[in-house]
């Protein structure tokens, strides 16, 4: 009898862990959000301007001249160690060609024109002037225009969407709808103002964008996001299921205790958790954690000392280029770490990547962009336990081969119970819309098509 207890008791304890995590544990409460939290200077609160003003990106002559001077006057950089490629970070042997191009060949006026090809605007939300692009397609009478909020991340910008937008907004016989794109710059990024006081984390950015869409007159809309855009979009879908009628993410991740538990279960019994041909995107776990440790140094320092590391990056264009382009190398394909040129010419032209850099350099927004990490990785934000609150909005994920982390549907469903589909592609990395604009757009349109079908079914009922 006692021997039975001896075996049964530990088994019961073991079984209770998943039972608790997966079934019994009640989700945390929905956070109390202040929809009118003020992020700007207090003196402006009384005279808030709610107009929507057209905006044009300008690369002023002064700014360009100064940038070129700084690039030309750069100090010589320490040579890389022998034979290391990008394994110790950006290989300084590559810098000269990049910097020479930036200072002498990058056509500033042309690129300014290029960046202004889509209509830009600014409007003040909760004290911050939020920059956004709005692209509205011309459609025949029987085609419905549906709004899509498109959210970028770090170290990206709205620039990541330029090649995808024509495909996203295309009118097609195969669809009874066409997308109207609203692509804002995150607060503290590019041409959007930064908060003047602490506290503006992903959850609060979600509030700002909800208010932005309300300002623009949208009652219901779809959201697409990658990187921080995925986290912010996910927060929006969590908080505002009435407004958000579909959420598409190309970096779907959930980090709840239950998710971690399932990942560990899958380490022992992979077939329970993941399709065999996708198992190597998650397992072995030791490799995954090893890679994370190797690659998350930037996240660690940005989540703790953004204002320190940002000073050099604000001052040195070479420093900023190396810091940001290192991510465009490694996050596109981790094998690029062995390449001496970091594989940077694989998918992009120099103009494309420097366009994105210019949105950080010309606006001096690198420091404020990094603060999003410090704010969102604070214990205050973590204690909201957003990962443990389910999203009641239809969700669709696109999973590129070299995205930084992968989770299979059974894990994602812990957070996204209305997961409609997970598109797995054998190509592409973190900056998917930028890298594979057509494939990206196709998947987003497919997702919205499905979301619309679900919506119609619901309303018919």
């Amino acid at each position, binding site marked *: 009898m006692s021997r039975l207890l001896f075996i049964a008791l530990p088994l019961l304890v073991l079984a209770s862990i998943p039972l608790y995590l997966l079934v019994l544990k009640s989700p945390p409460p929905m956070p109390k959000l202040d929809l009118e939290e003020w992020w700007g200077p207090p003196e402006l609160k009384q005279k808030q301007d709610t107009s929507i003003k057209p905006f044009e990106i300008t690369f002023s002559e002064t700014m360009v001249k100064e940038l070129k001077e700084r690039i030309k*006057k750069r*100090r010589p*950089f*320490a*040579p890389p*160690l*022998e*034979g*290391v490629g990008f394994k*110790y*970070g*950006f*290989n*300084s042997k590559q810098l000269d060609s990049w910097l020479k191009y930036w200072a002498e060949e990058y056509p500033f006026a042309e690129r300014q024109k290029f960046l202004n090809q889509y209509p830009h605007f600014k409007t003040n939300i909760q004290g911050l002037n939020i920059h956004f692009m709005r692209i509205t397609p011309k459609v025949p009478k029987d085609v419905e225009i549906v709004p899509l909020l498109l959210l970028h991340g770090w170290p990206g910008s709205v620039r990541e969407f330029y090649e995808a937008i024509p495909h996203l907004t295309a009118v097609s016989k195969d669809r009874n709808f066409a997308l109207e794109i609203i692509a804002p710059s995150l607060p503290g990024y590019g041409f959007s103002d*930064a*908060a*003047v*006081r*602490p506290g503006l984390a992903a959850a609060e950015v979600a509030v700002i964008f909800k208010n932005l869409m309300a300002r623009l007159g949208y009652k219901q809309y779809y959201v697409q996001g990658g990187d921080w855009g995925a986290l912010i979009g996910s927060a929006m879908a969590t908080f505002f299921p009435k407004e958000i009628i579909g959420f598409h993410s190309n970096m779907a991740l959930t*980090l709840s205790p239950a998710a971690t538990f399932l990942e560990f279960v899958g380490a022992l019994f992979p077939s329970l958790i993941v399709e065999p041909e996708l198992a190597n995107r998650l397992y072995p*776990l*030791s490799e995954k*954690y090893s890679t*994370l*440790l190797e*690659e*998350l*140094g930037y996240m*660690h*320092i*940005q*989540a*703790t*000392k*953004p*204002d*320190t*590391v*940002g*000073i*050099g*990056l*604000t*001052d*040195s264009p*070479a*420093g900023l280029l*190396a*810091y940001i382009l*290192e991510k465009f190398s490694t996050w596109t394909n981790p094998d690029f770490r062995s390449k001496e040129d970091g594989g940077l010419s694989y998918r992009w032209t120099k103009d494309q990547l420097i366009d994105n850099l210019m949105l950080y350099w010309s606006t*001096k*927004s690198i*420091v*404020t962009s990094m*603060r999003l990490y*410090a704010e969102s*990785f604070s*214990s205050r934000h*973590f*204690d909201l336990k957003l990962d443990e609150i389910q999203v009641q909005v239809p969700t669709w994920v696109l999973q590129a081969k070299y995205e930084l982390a992968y989770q299979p549907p059974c894990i994602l469903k812990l957070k996204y119970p209305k997961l409609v589909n997970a598109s797995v592609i054998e190509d592409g990395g973190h900056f998917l819309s930028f890298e594979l604009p057509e494939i990206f757009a196709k998947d987003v349109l497919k997702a919205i098509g499905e979301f619309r079908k679900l919506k119609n079914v619901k309303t018919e009922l």
Partner: protein
Amino acid sequence: MGGLFGLVITSCLTIELLASQNTEPAYKLDPNAWWGPECTKYHNDTSIRPFEIVFHDKMIADLRYRLNNHRKPVPPLEGIGFEYGFNSNILDGWLRFWAEEYPFKEREIFLNKYPQYVTNIQGLDIHFIKYRQKAYAHQEIVPLLILHGWPGSVREFYETIPHLTSVNKSRDFAVEVIAPTLPGFGYSDAAVRPGLGMHEIAVVFSNLMKRLGYKKYYVQGGDWGAFIGSSIATSFPNEVLGYHTNLGLSLTQKALSLTLFGSLFPSPVVDPALADRTDLLSGHIRDAMITEFGYMHIQATKPDTLGIAMTDSPGGLLAYFLQLISTGTRSYFLNLEDGGIDKYYTRDQLLDNIMMYWAPKSITTSFRIYAESLNRRTLALGISEIPTPVPTITIHASDEIAYQSPLLLRTKFTNLLYTTNIDTGGHFLALEMPILFANDVLNAIAEFRNWHAKGGHGNGELLPNNNG
């Protein structure tokens, strides 16, 4: 700030530690490893050449230009001190001081006050100070190898050297200081190929001491100097007469287990009065590690990326360094708008140290010590696991970044003679409290000499704890 991030980092580190246990040692330490260009290997120059630090006019003009044309930083968030890092409100003041008040020529003369040399060890020109004062006839001259760390330099020792080398009739010895610059730092060459981690640097310094004619010597180290010193004491125990450190740490698995155990049950592991200096699970220490070790994480993984901005922007380099010096000196400086930087140091002192990185352009190569030492290869060498019988004495400042009790230290330093705990002082102890530091080192050397005179057998018994 802990939570999710702490969980991820801790899991990664734990799994990394466990995974590395199974790797076969990649290679053993090579006493003749060549770190310079291949082509220089056969022209081995063993001369010891005098060296002088020079702040060239061109370098000064360029630096001033950059400082005066520094791109105005973004203002800090309202109502904070250094919680998000270096508070940019004080940047302008510092840069103006550096450009207009820091007396370059005077400082150059100051930095050359001690005789300096370079000599080529294993392909690298190693810069070092070698200095002693005139001793009495009855006194034995004892060599002390003193090792700096990051973001320090030999500059950290300038105020303590006169006291360390002071000649006191009542002592039967006088100290000759040998203070090298770590490879890749300051005016020492950097390795051209991967692999020069802390244990390999220990080999370089053992060879340096041989080059200088010392068969046996004492070692003192803080920060990386502590790890390198500990490595020298482990790999070359017959050379080291005694090891003194202000960052005593055992990196053995035993110590790690005891630390975790001590987090739950402190009293068998650590003096209750000092328990909160070591508790890993309470949140206080763990949180401090998360908030303060970002620099270590990025330098250990992407040194060359970060190095570019730091090579190009003196303001960037200054902010980076001063933030670390701030929090490394007193943890409460985190909440001060000026980071408390002017409290215990003069601006000249701190800028001298920064010049040792700016002038020789060694910031990137200095970062690499993290990448080369915090990796599986270094772990696989297993040297940190091996205890050393070299007599050891430690001093523990109140705001040092890490603390281990004697119980833990003895898992590595089997002849730990005594430890001193002070309720003041920070990470940069030699610079902050040069007299106290020097006295502790001199007392230690006297104790080591006693120990050797008595036959030098360690019975592992700890002398009464010295709580100064």
